[in-house]
């Protein structure tokens, strides 16, 4: 009996995602519900708008988000990214579908349960920062805690370390308007981290920032994530950012997920023209990792890590006599080999139309 329970627990831990979205539809407009079946039968977003004046926000989204990983959601403006992320903490009510967090249905929660859920389980970072302009940096960071009813002293104490961790020490008594955009978003990030919520929702959090500052913020986030292991849903319309940050990527178009999974897989096997188009400008030598072009077998030559980029691998590969290297995992175990030809092929993919034809 006891053992069975443990087993179930184990199975659950291994196979169940932290966050599950099932058959989620959102149709904006007061008769949204009645159009679900037409949308399911294939009515397009444009048609729904032209004929019925309703906006298709989300079209049958199914997405499992793994615990402690960064799930990127990408898509052009208007593709439904903000709508999707706002369903996770129910800032937007769905037209139909289910959302589970830790196997609890978010949509079944009462108002007070929902408040508790938002206080303890999720926190959010916004594109335009959404700081409270009348509160100081320290007060802004402590905001989530004060909402929970934590005493002022304790809230200050607990938020202090987050102010430090995003590099804002010394700015505690400033007001948001006195800070640059990058610094304001640091406040936004610290505010979200201060509640210790396991799920972090970031809606184009860095999109409003200059490129250099954006890279800074990405570094801060990745650095913090190494210690914090949050489940992060990160929205962006920028592929470089998505590849840099995402453990997994889902690509949205007109409210529909058209491809999801390992970023490497999306680059190597784009599902359609839309995605090929998306990835055509990336620097493949920097982005593609050799694990994506790995073959079975081993060779005599030297070893490369599976996460090594093509750019870094090429030199070693070229210097080998048989133009081959072993691939090893994080623990140093050989898991396959990689050849120079394969590497060059992967680099050239973007220029040829091979991949496109394959998926047409």
């Amino acid at each position: 009996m006891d053992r069975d329970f443990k087993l179930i627990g184990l199975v659950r831990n291994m196979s169940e995602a932290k966050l599950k979205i099932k058959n989620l539809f959102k149709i904006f407009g007061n008769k949204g519900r009645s159009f679900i079946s037409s949308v399911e039968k294939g009515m397009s977003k444009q048609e729904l708008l032209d004929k019925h004046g309703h906006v298709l926000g989300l079209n049958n989204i199914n997405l499992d988000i793994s615990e402690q990983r960064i799930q990127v959601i990408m898509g052009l403006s208007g593709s439904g990214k903000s709508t999707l992320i706002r369903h996770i903490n129910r800032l937007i009510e769905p037209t139909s579908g289910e959302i589970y967090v830790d196997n609890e249905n978010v949509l079944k929660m009462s108002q007070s349960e929902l408040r508790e859920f938002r206080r303890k389980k999720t926190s959010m970072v916004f594109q335009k920062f959404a700081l409270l302009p009348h509160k100081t940096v320290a007060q802004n960071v402590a905001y989530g805690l004060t909402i929970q009813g934590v005493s002022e002293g304790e809230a200050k104490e607990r938020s202090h370390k987050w102010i430090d961790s995003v590099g804002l020490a010394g700015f505690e008594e400033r007001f948001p308007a006195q800070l640059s955009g990058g610094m304001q978003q640091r406040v936004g990030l610290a505010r979200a981290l201060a509640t210790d919520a396991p799920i972090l929702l970031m809606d184009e959090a860095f999109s409003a920032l200059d490129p250099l500052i954006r890279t800074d913020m990405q570094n801060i986030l990745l650095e913090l994530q190494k210690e914090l292991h949050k489940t992060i849903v990160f929205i962006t319309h920028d592929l470089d950012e998505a590849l840099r940050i995402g453990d997994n990527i889902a690509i949205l178009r007109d409210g529909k997920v058209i491809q999801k999974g390992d970023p490497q897989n999306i680059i190597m096997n784009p599902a359609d023209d839309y995605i090929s188009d998306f990835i055509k400008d990336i620097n493949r030598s920097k982005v593609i990792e050799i694990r994506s072009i790995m073959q079975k077998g081993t060779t005599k030559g030297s070893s490369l890590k599976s996460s090594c980029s093509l750019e870094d691998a090429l030199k070693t590969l070229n210097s080998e006599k048989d133009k081959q290297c072993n691939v090893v995992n994080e623990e140093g175990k050989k898991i396959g080999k990689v050849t120079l030809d394969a590497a060059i092929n992967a680099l050239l993919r973007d220029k040829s139309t091979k991949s496109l034809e394959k998926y047409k």
Partner: protein
Amino acid sequence: MDFLTEFPSLGKRDLRDLKKTIDGSFREWSRTYGDAIEAFFDPLYFFLVWLEKLLIAAPWPIILILVASFAYLGSRSWKLALGSVISFMLIGYFGMWKDMMATISLISVATLICIAVGIPIGILMSRYDRVQSAITPILDLMQTIPIFVYLLPVVMLLGIGRVPGLIAVCVYALPPIIRLTNLGIRLVDKEILEAADAFGSSYRQKLFEVQLPLALPNIFAGVNQTIMMALAMVVIASMIGVKGLGMPVLQAVQNQYLTLGLMNGLAIVALAIIFDRVSQRYGQRLQAHRFGKEHE
């Protein structure tokens, strides 16, 4: 031909009967409930009288010190504080001290009432669209209906004196603060409200931590307008027996006392300018954080 030039109207007798019936029933109603309504407003009356007496009985140097500190704390400007004190001294020097105290007590009480009544109504309007669409026409009516028309039933109910005067002032001065509270809350940035929701705020927390503080500059603009409109009503209120600077103006108009009218009129204007400047400066300071200035 007569039919076209003469607008078809109710017969004279019918019209007279109609007016008589309505007048009669209102009079009946006010006779039955007048005392109860008056009793309801008694606390207000006592407060008003108490404040007026207090201000008049207080030694004038103390009042001047209060004026200076109120003006300085509100505006953080020595010039304005000094100007206020000089104006008060001049008004007193020309024999209008007591009237000025009476007017100030009326304005203060009226403003307090308007804030106490107006802000909650404004909050309700901002929360429920239905309340907004129900109350907006009432506010329009309050601002367009000729003052004398609602003065009449008030006087019939409560007679002549401070309380009906106060009510008349409040009816006139209430709309701006209601409107601007509602507007101010509705104008609060959507994304900031979303942030408040995302962190699990209750309605109360959102109202007091986010909406009201961010609407404060607008609400304060409403308070400022309310004060100005209350001052503008001082002369009319004196027609139904409210003491203060308005009374001499009314006398002056009736008897063509030019100097009396001018002096009291100028005193009202001086008060208006002081209240306006101080409250506007205060309102500006409330939103200093928006422009990245250091908070004082």
